[in-house]
């Protein structure tokens, strides 16, 4: 390297300038993100109180808390998990452990890539057409959860596949040679090894579902609900939609409540993100192969 700089002083200067430019660009990308988070925490923290978290809105959203929206988002996230986790993990197992390299598998891959790319509002249209109207589930937690599940599916499938693929093949060979069937090998050997990766993927997928607004707009979200939903066929308030409502639809909305609501959603979503990151890095440091 030193000979480079001696022979090529002009190039060295260009390199220093170039590297600094890349550093600057990265800084300009990262700082607004961190700034945004800090800004929301500072602005939103004063609104947080037990009362804010445990009472419904009152006085046309301008007073009170956001309990129904919090509970609604929990329900939707849970509902999404019920449908998307078993289906997504099984599909990931299929692609990693069963699928052969043929035309059908390529078609499945293209389908997954496309599911991941479909705009969220189009999922909303689809949910409206299939779940709300055709299957007559109505505007409900069930319809919204099913819609979010299909949207979350590609994330869970791809991360499951990736996690299982990273398990060395020798594990499978040894297990099979000891007389285990294919499923026993997957269930007892491959799946446990890939579990941290799979859980990380599930959390990241659910995190995205929890923060989405467009897919639930016409499938399950409602403007205001005085009490909590009783059944999966009830519509529900949800944090992301509530943020949309209180920042665009209601004049004279107190800023404090707005930032408080945003902060609660951010804590929810980034908390899931943090957990996923921790699981992943812990699993990585414990890995023995």
């Amino acid at each position, binding site marked *: 390297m030193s000979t480079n700089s001696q022979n090529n002083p002009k190039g060295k200067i260009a390199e220093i300038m170039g590297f600094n430019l890349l550093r600057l660009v990265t800084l300009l990308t990262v700082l607004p993100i961190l700034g945004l988070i800090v800004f929301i925490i500072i602005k939103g923290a004063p609104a947080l109180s037990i009362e804010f978290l445990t009472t419904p809105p009152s006085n046309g959203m301008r007073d009170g808390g956001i309990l129904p929206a919090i509970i609604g988002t929990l329900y939707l996230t849970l509902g999404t998990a019920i449908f998307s986790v078993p289906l997504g993990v099984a*599909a990931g197992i299929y692609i990693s452990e069963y699928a052969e390299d043929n035309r059908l598998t390529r078609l499945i891959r293209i389908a997954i890539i496309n599911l991941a790319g479909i705009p969220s509002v189009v999922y909303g249209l689809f949910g409206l057409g299939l779940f709300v109207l055709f299957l007559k589930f109505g505007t409900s937690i069930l319809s919204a959860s099913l819609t979010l599940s299909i949207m979350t599916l590609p994330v869970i499938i791809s991360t499951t596949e990736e996690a299982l693929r990273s398990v060395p093949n020798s594990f499978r060979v040894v297990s099979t040679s000891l007389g285990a069937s294919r499923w026993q090998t997957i269930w007892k050997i491959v799946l446990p090894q890939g579990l941290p990766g799979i859980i990380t993927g599930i959390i990241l997928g659910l995190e995205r579902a929890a923060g989405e607004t467009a897919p639930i707009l016409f499938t399950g979200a409602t403007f205001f609900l005085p009490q909590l939903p009783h059944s999966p066929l009830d519509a529900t308030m949800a944090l992301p939609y509530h943020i949309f409502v209180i920042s665009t639809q209601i004049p004279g909305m107190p800023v404090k409540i707005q930032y408080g609501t945003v902060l609660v959603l951010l804590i929810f979503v980034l908390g899931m993100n943090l957990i996923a990151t921790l699981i992943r890095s812990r699993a990585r440091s414990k890995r023995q192969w």
Partner: protein
Amino acid sequence: MRQEKRKSDIIISSVIKVCGYSSILFVGLILIFLLREGLPALKDVAFSTLFSVRWYPIEGYFGILPLILGTLLVTISATLIALPFGIGTALYMSEVAPRWIKEVLKPVVEILAGIPSVVLGFIGILVLVPFFRKFLDLPTGLTAFTGAILLGLISIPTIVSVAEDALNNVPPAYRQAGLALGATRWQTIWGVTLPAAKTGVLTAVMLGIGRSLGETMAVMMVTGNAPVLPTQIYALFRPVRTMTATIASEMGEVATGSQHYQVLFLIGILLFVFSLVINIVASAVSTRQRKRSERVLS
């Protein structure tokens, strides 16, 4: 005992197989239900009406051109804004940064990817919109440009992670050869690494475009939602309306099965097709590249 084992194995295997095929089923279902609700629009609404420049559904004007061009304007501007930051950050992370900085940067980019778009839209309304109105002396801060900035921010994580993967996949031997020939690391990045990762970077850009194209909430909240045909360059600093925002803001108020309802689904079909094309091309490009590099290296 053995028989039993084999039987349960077969059952479980077939269940898993069915789950494996489910993605194909869902893509098919999505297409079918979009077509079912949206295709009648082509029969009921005249072609000349659909491809006119006036979107005013209450009086039966269903011109989708302003919406398509609005989406185009915002998406292209967003991509131009996101590109230097996305690619620059990817280059820094993969080629320049020491390991520990990389370990810090990665989660930060992931945090950005995890921030719900409605939160960015909210910050847009409360911070960006008033700022631009004052700073650029505009009648309103709800403009295509404001939307483009937010969309740029939203597509950056996609661009960074895909481009960084592409750069990491360039074999170290390429870089070593560049350095051995006397090039500086900077020259190696531009002359060797980046060209070698060209298609991967292109895929990153395309997926970024796909991300912007389909984004709904943030755009809807800050672009002012005026369905005006953007014809001149200053349209960037005027309110605009995208396809996604139109669906999101109007679907709640239409009667099921009405013309307006059908046209909104038709816009959904267009969005579906756009994203389909972008994703298939992006994945085709990257698989072809992978095959070629495997051939070169073997």
